[in-house]
């Protein structure tokens, strides 16, 4: 027990401490990122060159965008396995629309398609009470199949120059697509941290009964997260098309696993209620860095999967270990 004056004089450090405590997961992730970068720059002189850094940013965009949606879904204790194939399918829809329509309209068409597929996911999961794993597994299969059907199993090339600008142009020296990614993350962070909807999403994942008895719109938000996830898959498809100026029906295969890995590395709980997009953002970067590092080190591509898989599990294990130790301190009441 401290007296009032003592408490007041210590207020600012206490606030900072509280901020640190709230963000300790993110801070640890940041430390891990820094450590990885340091190691890679020591091993490979190429790592810290401008072109490689731009390359890293570029590579983080697709996974990064889809991982936002995956974070929303996982926060409600759901999972979305369909994001990879939806990115593929909406990419094809986008390519077909581009042949007929101007670029902005085509983007809207693609995003609406993704959102619609997400709505179907969310509606069946929420209203039909089917496990998210099953529903999105079904949608994963349907999405990939539609990508082949709509494209006739052919790649779509000859995309307009203006689309390429999305990937090749820069804003303040940074790639446009990376800037967009950062903006999307900032928006998602604000929404999840301060908006009613965002806090409702946390409440649903934390204790769905509490959310229901408080009169929150549980069904609406449970569906919404899948709509967001589907729509962001389409946004990712647009950026993917812009980057390689070609749309392939097998594009983004396995993306769902990368995004789930990024979210989990970022500290989210698959049981819902815990996690932040900031964590996810760093999770994405850790994934990209590891892949980049393995390439720089010329690791045999066949071995890369083993390396990445082990590193993911090790990272999560380390995080659990660290947070379990931090948990002892967390039990102390703050103001008592």
């Amino acid at each position, binding site marked *: 027990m401290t007296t009032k004056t003592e408490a007041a004089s210590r207020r600012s450090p206490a606030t900072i401490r509280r901020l640190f405590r709230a963000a300790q997961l993110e801070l640890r992730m940041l430390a891990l990122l820094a450590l990885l970068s340091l190691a890679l720059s020591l091993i490979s002189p190429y790592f810290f060159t401008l072109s490689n850094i731009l390359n890293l940013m570029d590579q983080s965009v697709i996974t990064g965008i889809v991982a936002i949606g995956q974070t929303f879904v996982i926060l409600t204790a759901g999972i979305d396995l369909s994001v990879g194939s939806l990115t593929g399918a909406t990419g094809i829809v986008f390519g077909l629309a581009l042949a007929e329509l101007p670029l902005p309209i085509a983007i809207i068409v693609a995003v609406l398609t993704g959102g619609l597929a997400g709505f179907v996911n969310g509606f069946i999961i929420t209203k039909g009470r089917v496990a998210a794993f099953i529903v999105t597994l079904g949608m994963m299969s349907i999405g990939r199949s539609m990508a082949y059907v709509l494209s006739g199993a052919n790649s779509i090339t000859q995309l307009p120059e203006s689309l390429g600008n999305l990937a090749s142009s820069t804003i303040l020296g940074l790639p446009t697509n990376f800037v967009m990614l950062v903006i999307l993350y900032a928006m998602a962070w604000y929404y999840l941290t301060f908006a009613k909807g965002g806090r409702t999403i946390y409440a649903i994942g*934390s204790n769905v009964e509490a959310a229901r008895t408080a009169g929150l719109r549980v069904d609406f938000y449970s569906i919404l997260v899948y709509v967001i996830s589907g729509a962001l898959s389409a946004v990712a498809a647009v950026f993917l098309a812009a980057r390689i100026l070609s749309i392939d029906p097998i594009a983004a295969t396995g993306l769902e696993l990368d995004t789930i890995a990024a979210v989990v590395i970022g500290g989210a709980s698959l049981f819902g209620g815990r996690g932040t997009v900031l964590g996810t953002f760093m999770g994405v970067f850790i994934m990209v860095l590891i892949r980049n590092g393995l390439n720089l080190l010329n690791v045999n591509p066949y071995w890369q999967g083993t390396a990445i898989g082990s590193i993911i599990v090790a990272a999560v294990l380390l995080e659990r270990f660290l947070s379990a130790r931090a948990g002892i301190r967390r039990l102390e009441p703050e103001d008592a």
Partner: protein
Amino acid sequence: MTATATVESGPEFALEARDIWKAFERTQALSGAALALRPGEIHALVGANGAGKSTLSRIVSGHLSADRGEIQLFGAPAGFTSARDAIRAGVTMVMQETSLAPDLSVLENIYLPEFSAPGRLRWKDLASRAAALLDQFGQRGRLPLRAVLRDLSASQRQMVEILKALATNAKVIIFDEPTASFSPNEVDRLFDVMRLLVQQGKALVFVSHRLEEIFEITDRITVFREGRVVANATSTTEMRPADLVRLMVGREIADIYAHGAAGRGARSSGAPVLEVDHLASPPRVRDVSFKVAEGEILGLAGLVGAGRSECVEALFGLRRIESGDIRLAGASYRPRAPTDAVRAGVGFIPEDRRRQGLVQDFTVRENLLLAHLGRRRGLGLGDDEQRVRITQLLEDLSLSPRILDDSILTLSGGMQQKVVLARWILMSPKLLILDEPTRGVDIGTRSTVYAMIRRLAQQGMGVLLVSSDFEEVIGVSDRIVVMSDGADVTSIPSGLIDVEKLAMFAAPRSSAEATHFVLEDLVRRFGGVAYWIFVEGERLYCFDAVTASDAPNIGFSRGSFPEITCTKIPEVLRQRPRRFLSEPAGASLLTPLRGHRGHDLGHIGLTLPPDGALPYPSVVERIIRAGPATAAMTSAGGA
């Protein structure tokens, strides 16, 4: 008086439910239940477990819908289809098993219902409203608004649940066992708030198993038995506790604590089963020492946050033990995990039986054999050998053997608790630890549970009972160890203590700090020894004492409870004059101490060496009054 006038000019009933029927699958929960609630009253809803009071509460607050029946709110028909409708209409419920989001902050949980309203969130606005709410409830500084809920204690969470209901500005508030996790002081505070709400013309429903609370706070009582109303809105003053119990269970229950004259304290001389010496398990358990003898029921009492639960959790291997020496039946014992504890012969019935005690997807039989799995080495389940004993045990617990293959979820709270109890009896442990064994359990089942505990002790088992219900601790235990702020304060035979003195022993440093400060102040100014005591008949209870280096020996110290004749200052204790009285040991002055609601909180005493100069009694009295003692005592001794 204007408030009363407007209330009287409105409809007679704030909420009226008539002829409510509700069935769950095979069981008929309500058969024509009714409830008539007047504005500005506290209405008790009483009944044994499964009587239907929770079901009715859930129906009128929109969590469930009735099969048929009529509900009117202020004279207008109301049939809520969701909790949100009910909250909007001004009916809200404080849930029994807390329904909060553990990952959100306290602030967010309090205002969770507002998250569905249109418009943006204004966090600063919410924070200032929450602060005002905390002030009104006297919770400022006790409830960290920004803390994440999962880090709070059970009673703090219950407080959040209550604040959440208050924040909706409801006209009708249903409190479903709000005090189950509360210490007497917290109950007092809650009652203050309830009285405040009633003055504002709100109608409150109070569901509780604690009869003394019902008689203290409520105006009228509706009693349920098996889904029917057996007493409709009877005035509380017209009912006696015995009548109420008979109405609830349909028969007489004599002594619910089941201790005959023979049982009590008679067996505490057995060989020690458990010896705990300076146990520390940070952050809550700092320094605890006590012993449990064979056949003894030892009550571990203390307020919420005193570290009782944490202490027994450490003893069961659920928390890391940092230091201390523990012996179980003479052998060194230091469990790292519950498996170690079970193999060593320790049984544990946790506080939160839904979360820690039962596997929800298992049948009754599987739940019974759960601990058995942990003790058994090898592949098989080995439940054949247990079958005979299970049958016997169910008979003892007055449970039908037909329930064995039912899902545990179909049982009522009291029956679930019996199953958990039975599980550990099957293991025949040397030591059985019970953490809040009757929380949310009705009076009929409680007496069965108490009788079982007593019988187990008579068979030679050591029983360690943790309870926030002071009456229960005193009624069930042979001896009581009082904990405060993670340390043991005193160890006292239960026959020598009552609820009020227990509350004073249990006062945490934070709220007794002011008294302690006064004692220190007195000693600093005048030397000698200053103490906070309570004298009852020929016995003295010392809650705190501060001694200077030249202090005379007064014959008692903090935590002791000697007879007056065994102390060195018997005369002053007996006469309690308003002046210094000299005895061979020294000159003493006792000044009475009262709480803000006039409670007798005992005396502050000062004993100075026999030959020194004495201050004026009025000076001493002024120092005691000026100190923050009285203010602080309101929270320390409110029971």
